[in-house]
């Protein structure tokens, strides 16, 4: 009985230390995750540059456009593709700006690479890739640069917050109360 009484404060102290260590580890994991996530935009940009290089070389692994057109039917005209490209660029930029304003964590970069690849492909089939290559490249670079900047600022802000929480945890042994403005 006496031995149990002596052990109680030690157990409570160990539990507090364990909780603090768990919280600390959780915060460190989140910081690590945010650091990884902050590079997502740049990875998407690199992938887009790869797709653009293939488009610049006129998709050497694809059959000639005439063959594809013969089997799939005629593609939309270059003017219609350009119109859709303008609409897409405008919407993507507005969406990115809205996400930036709302401070949302959104993983949208890689799908843009897919959309832009499809634009390259349609121009290739419509025989308008040479004239419109730089338009798709400019649109992709702008959208992905915007997304990279949005993701990077989001992660930087959150890493700062997590570091503050970590410092608070080291000082007080508990996490600060949640900020209602945080998303």
């Amino acid at each position: 009985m006496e031995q149990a009484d002596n052990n109680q404060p030690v157990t409570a102290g160990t539990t507090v230390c364990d909780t603090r260590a768990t919280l600390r580890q959780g915060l460190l994991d989140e910081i690590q995750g945010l650091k990884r996530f902050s590079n997502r935009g740049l990875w998407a940009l690199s992938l887009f540059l790869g797709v653009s290089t293939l488009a610049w070389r006129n998709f050497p692994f694809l059959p000639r456009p005439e063959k594809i057109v013969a089997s799939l039917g005629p593609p939309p005209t270059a003017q219609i593709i350009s119109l859709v490209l303008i609409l897409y660029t405008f919407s993507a930029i507005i969406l990115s700006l809205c996400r930036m304003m709302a401070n949302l964590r959104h993983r949208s970069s890689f799908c843009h690479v897919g959309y832009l690849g499809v634009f390259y492909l349609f121009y290739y089939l419509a025989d308008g890739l040479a004239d419109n290559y730089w338009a798709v490249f400019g649109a992709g670079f702008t959208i992905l640069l915007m997304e990279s900047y949005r993701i990077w600022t989001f992660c930087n802000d959150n890493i700062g917050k997590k570091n503050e929480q970590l410092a608070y945890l080291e000082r007080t042994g508990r996490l600060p109360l949640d900020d209602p403005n945080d998303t």
Partner: protein
Amino acid sequence: MFDRIAGRALIPVGIVVTGFLIVCFVLLYSAIKTVVVKDSIGHANNLAGIILKSTRYAMLKSDRELNSAIVQNISQQKGVEHVRIFSQTGIVAFSSNAAEVNRQVDKKAEGCILCHAKNEPITTLGNMEKARTFKNRLGEDVLAITTPIYNEPECADAACHVHPASQKVLGTLDIGLSQDATLSSLSSIRGEMVLFSLLTLILTTAGVIALLKMIVLQPMRKLQEYTERSESDSQLEHPHNLPYELDKIARSFYFIRNKLAEAEQHTVKTDANLR
């Protein structure tokens, strides 16, 4: 730079405006180029039609001298690179370059392959299909139109040289036009568009910077100076004419600073009384 308000506001604006302007510029230029090229192909087709109409009578009469003279005169016109008339078998019957006359042309050559790709040649082509572009020996861009010369009742019935009525195409006319004028127009349009795009970009960026400085940065600096100076002077009046949100912050700071000063004075008085 990325931590400051100016940096955070200007980087997205700069990226968005520059990128969207480049996309619109390239697409607009591409659309204009398509229109200009279509227009020049239309003009070249008209010119080919005029040549065919001009030579029609001489062909009906089988007047080689007159035909040669017409071809030579047209080829002397500025911007006309070459004029050739081929027989159905691919032999150059008339040409602006005398050395080419009576030479056989390969049916697989550029400009011929379009119709002669299959065993049975195509006899009708659209305006755009008749056109091809290439660089001549001087490295200049040339737009060439190859148009068929169709058999007509007058040709089949002519007494001089009989073509059977069943023969649909008698030969082809090939005319090459220098693209210098078209390319120069396009270059001029491109220059003007670049200039307007740059001006728009500069104006947008300057407008955003000016507004940001006037509405946010200058009042923020006033507020910053006020908070720094009030550390040494607690009676300092808060700045006026600030935007609503910053004015509220300044008033709150002024209120807290006064309360703190009162509390400090109260503590000093209490300490003095205790002594």
